[in-house]
């Protein structure tokens, strides 16, 4: 069967003449795009995950014991089992600050399997059902009643670990038996890995003496500010009024992680720039060699009527074939890498909401454009040089 004779066929046959060289170029572009897709996926996922998590907590301000911001973020974003406490009477002093609409609190306890509890290490969140506005939105429709003393709810991720689902299970927490009576909806925060009890249980837990929690202590106070109030201003006033606490406005949650992420991002950008430079240089070197090798052929094509634009079309088609194949391989590789390596990064493992389709499509499009852009940029100078050669000079240049 006769093959169609087009610029595309022409260009692809040219590339097949030196398969190893073409393959090296494709690999270089694939590596560039894979590194870029991975980096962008990582940074986007962590950034959007933290943003989403902070929004889903439903509070404008978090009040924590002084020096416990990092620990609070660890619990809320990464479900690290940490405990930190302040006296509950601080709430009254906080409440006195102008601009506060709602307040609730939570107390965090950490389980130790085999010692106090029969569940794997996790955070147990004791909350007040009367004032709560953080947990309530995630109660499933099936659980439409108040938690009783001795009952616990399970975060969506923990449910699998302790096999709670449709069947009610009894577990020992801090020497007390709790009936796991329901599962929370997925929140997209570290709380998905926690267990939830009403704070009326704390008295019994403290009495058993298997935690360092003392009576009248809480871990975090969640605040909703009145409409029109600036959370930053209210947070500042709380810190001024109550020196024993630190505050975090919603947008500041994950700030330390995001700051670290910015450093990682800089490293990624530097690496990508370096790989892009190397790929561009490789493309330039390969296409300079190709232009020299094919000068005579280009001269012949020009002699039989090829315009400068035809020569550019042929070479650019070659460049774009390499760029497209390299970019597609890179996009697949980078995406697979970002999915596989998710399990290796604690922060990503505990931000359970994966990157959505649209951000992935956007990252793939950026990768595709940059992969092809680097290819074209690298090949531009040799293409310009060869197209400008006088046909006879090109023919004689060998």
């Amino acid at each position, binding site marked *: 069967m006769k093959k169609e004779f087009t610029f595309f066929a*022409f260009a692809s046959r040219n590339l097949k003449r030196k398969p190893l060289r073409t393959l090296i170029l494709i690999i270089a572009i694939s590596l560039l795009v894979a590194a870029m897709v991975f980096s962008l996926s990582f940074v986007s996922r962590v950034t959007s995950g933290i943003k989403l998590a902070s929004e889903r907590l439903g509070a404008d301000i978090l009040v924590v014991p002084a020096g416990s911001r990092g620990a609070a973020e660890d619990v809320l974003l990464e479900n690290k089992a940490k405990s930190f406490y302040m006296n509950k009477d601080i709430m009254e002093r906080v409440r006195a600050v102008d601009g506060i609409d709602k307040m609730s609190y939570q107390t965090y306890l950490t389980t130790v399997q085999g010692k106090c509890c029969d569940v794997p290490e996790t955070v147990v969140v004791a909350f007040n059902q009367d004032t709560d506005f953080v947990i309530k939105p995630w109660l499933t429709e099936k659980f439409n009643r108040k938690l009783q003393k001795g009952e616990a709810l399970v975060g969506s991720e923990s449910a699998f670990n302790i096999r709670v689902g449709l069947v009610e299970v009894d577990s020992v927490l801090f020497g007390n038996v709790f009936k796991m009576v329901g599962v929370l909806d997925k929140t997209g925060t570290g709380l998905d890995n926690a267990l939830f009890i009403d704070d009326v249980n704390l008295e019994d837990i403290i009495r058993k003496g298997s935690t360092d929690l003392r009576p009248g202590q809480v871990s975090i106070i969640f605040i909703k500010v009145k409409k029109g109030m600036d959370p930053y201003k209210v947070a500042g006033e709380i810190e001024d009024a109550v020196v024993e606490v630190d505050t975090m406005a919603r947008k500041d949650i994950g700030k330390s992680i995001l700051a670290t992420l910015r450093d990682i991002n800089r490293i990624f950008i530097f690496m990508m720039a370096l790989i892009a430079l190397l790929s561009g240089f490789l493309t330039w070197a390969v296409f300079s060699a190709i232009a020299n090798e094919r000068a005579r052929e280009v001269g012949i094509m020009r002699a039989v009527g090829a315009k400068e634009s035809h020569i550019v079309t042929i070479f650019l088609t070659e460049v774009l074939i390499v760029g497209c194949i390299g970019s597609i391989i890179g996009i697949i590789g980078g995406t697979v890498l970002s999915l596989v390596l998710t399990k290796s990064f604690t922060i990503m493992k505990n931000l359970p909401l994966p990157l959505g389709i649209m951000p992935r499509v956007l990252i793939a499009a950026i990768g595709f454009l940059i992969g092809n852009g680097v290819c074209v940029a690298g090949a531009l100078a040799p293409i310009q040089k060869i197209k400008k050669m006088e*046909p006879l000079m090109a023919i004689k240049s060998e």
Partner: protein
Amino acid sequence: MAQLEIAELTKIYTVGNQSITAVNSVSLNIEKGEFVSIVGHSGSGKTTLLSIIGGIMKPTSGRVVFKGQDISALNDDSLSEYRNEKIGFMFQFASLLPMLTVRENVLLPGLFRQKRSGGDEKKAEEFLNLVDIGEKVDAYPSQLSGGQQRRVAIARALMYGPQVILADEPTGDLDEETEADIMGLFRRLNREEQMTFIFITHNLDLAKMAQRQLRMTHGVLAGI
């Protein structure tokens, strides 16, 4: 008006500090349908003159006017169209593209045309049969002898019916019998299609087949 008017054409090459005058104030008129041969020693400027007429090299000074149009004044696109549509160039060396088949090499000028005809493939095969290489349409140049490659180049030059054929030793690699066949074909196209032929040869017998015979010596053209 002559089909080709060449006026005071000069080409000077600069090699290092040295200037070499390859074509020296050549003036020449060629009418449509003429059959012209150019003889001369190596380095006498024949190929340079042919290249300038064919628009694949720019002169240092002077003009080449094709049907009233000064080709030295054309921009690159128009000059490319001139080479593609008006001129059929046969080089003295193998000038096929190695990654294209014989058929594709013959169709190559068509790739650079805005309008491509559906019957081109059939026509290419007819021309290849005419130069006696019809059985090799799907072969690659590396599978052909030098003489066979030359015949493919001839078919390519004739394929799109140019008005002027510029041939630089077109039968150089061919045996006597094929040479006679090719020259017969040129004569026939010249007579029947009114195609203008300007060819360079070292073979005086071939040169004598032309209506007009020219000799080039040190860049200067003279009639024989």
